[in-house]
């Protein structure tokens, strides 16, 4: 099933951002940690496209590398959320009964805990690193995926073609893999997109309050934290990372919306 969304603008934007950030080592004009006191506090110039920070480090390079970290963490978190959430939801949707009840109640309970708070709790225990953050954020985002996966599976399993397949003797496990999964794939993709947006937002927020990526490494959130301290005279420290974060989240959200709208219109035209 080839959807038109492959060619959407937001999709292109996402690829662009991903590409640029992951290629940071190649694209960055300077070493992000290279201190050059002479250039400190300069605004956007030909030498430093996005200015330089208080230690003269080139902002543009720092943003590229920062993006790399943010994107990597977000992508890892999204994948973890997808894996955990889908398995969670699938088991609940296939098993039904008290297993379903219990799993979904747990999902509700997890969703009842305000996100930052939960992240706070976990991060304070485990410490923040490139490994721990994706896991924490991933676990946080999994219940929504779980709910969605469960209801999608339940709907699919009750549809006629499944009943027919079971009646003709197909094994349930085979059914799930070959028939049900492809049909819920678009919804999972929407979830993936939305989760990616949420992951970026969470990571940025955590880093901004100091519980995320620590210096000298810097994700976009950390850059904003550092920039905020110097905001009085040099707004651009904060401005560029903020812009980057917003555009990235916007792109992911728009992409997810786009797929959802396409799916809905397909369904209603049938």
């Amino acid at each position, binding site marked *: 099933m080839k959807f038109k969304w492959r060619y959407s603008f937001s999709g292109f934007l996402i690829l662009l951002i991903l590409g640029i950030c992951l290629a940071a080592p190649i694209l960055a004009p300077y070493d992000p940690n290279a201190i050059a006191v002479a250039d400190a506090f300069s605004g956007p110039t030909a030498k430093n496209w996005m200015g330089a920070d208080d230690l003269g480090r080139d902002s543009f390079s720092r943003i590229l590398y920062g993006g790399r970290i943010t994107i990597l963490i977000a992508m890892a978190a999204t994948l973890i959320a997808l894996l955990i959430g889908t398995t969670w939801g699938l088991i609940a949707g296939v098993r039904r009964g008290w297993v379903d009840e219990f799993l979904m*109640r747990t999902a*509700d*309970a997890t*969703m*009842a805990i305000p996100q930052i708070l939960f992240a706070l709790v976990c991060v304070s*225990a485990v410490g923040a690193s490139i490994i721990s953050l994706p896991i924490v954020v991933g676990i946080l985002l999994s219940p929504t995926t779980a709910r969605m996966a469960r209801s999608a599976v339940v709907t699919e399993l009750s549809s006629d073609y499944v009943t027919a397949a079971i009646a003709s003797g197909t094994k349930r496990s085979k059914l799930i893999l070959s028939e049900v999964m492809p049909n819920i794939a678009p919804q999972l993709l929407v979830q993936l997109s939305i989760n990616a947006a949420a992951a970026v937002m969470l990571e940025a927020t955590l880093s901004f309050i100091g519980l995320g990526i620590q210096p000298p490494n810097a994700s976009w959130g950390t850059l*904003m934290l550092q920039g905020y301290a110097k905001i009085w005279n040099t707004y651009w420290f904060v401005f560029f990372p903020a812009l980057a974060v917003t555009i990235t989240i916007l792109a992911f959200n728009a992409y997810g919306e786009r797929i959802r709208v396409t799916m809905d219109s397909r369904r209603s035209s049938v």
Partner: protein
Amino acid sequence: MGVFLLRRAASSLSVLAMSVVLVFLSIRILPGDPVLAKLGAATEVTPEALVALREEAGLNRPLLVQLFSWIGDAFRGDLGVSYFSQFPVTQLVSERIPVTLEVTFFIIFIAVILALILAPLSTLKPGSIVDRVIGYSTSIGLSVPGFVIGIVLILIFSLTLQWLPSRGFIPISENLVENLKLMILPAVTGGLTATPYLVRYLRASMLEVKQSPFVRTAEGKGLSNVRVLFRHILPNSLVPTLTMLGLIVGYTLSGVVVIEYMYGLPGIGSLAIESAFKRDYAVIQGVALTIISFFILTTFVFDILCGIVDPRLRLAKGQKSEV
């Protein structure tokens, strides 16, 4: 009505119980030793001293025992003692709760007012310029992290225009005007973060309701568009939105944590962050319990409100309406 209340209460309590257990377990299960954190890296600790300290903090007991003992204490109002400051957690929390409550109240207030203005404006003429502008704004609003909104607001109103202070807190008892002035930026930040979700949801709900036959009947009476919107479409759109509002409150509570920290408000949110830095688990647990309880309480209240607005919801499954 009574049965309805009981059912909802039971449901809420079970969710509360589970989340609390989750928080508790997360702290205990995750690697990282609170006692070591307390001592700090500088101190040399003999293994025996470590064991003794852990014994003292009760961390050597089986997990379940720890859990139940904590819950038992919590019921009696004892949430433990902060590892660092030696103050009882309950005291720390109760000192700072009023601030959080005040901020949260204003945030929700602003979000609801904005939504009740923007969503109907959008629905009055779907597809119009007004509708589309509101639509794009909500998209962008959803994608901007709360603290970024805060930064922008501070830049404009504190630094450039110098109209409002950007940090600090003065209790109402001392000075009402100053207190409110200091509340404005945090409340607007939080409100702007929550509004897009509300507006989106309310608008979708209203557009759906607009297609209903009874809206045509209302128009057929000769009512003006505005009256139809507010007396017939909006109330019927509120029911699903009220549920959403409960969730929004949850997100808001999450955001309050960051907002308190940014604006230097001494509420339980900033308490949580400070404790997170210090790895003060006793406090974090206590704060988590408080915040989660509030959240679940609010969803419960909104569920009840739903029942009030839509009388059909008060019927239990299988219960017939009187004829």
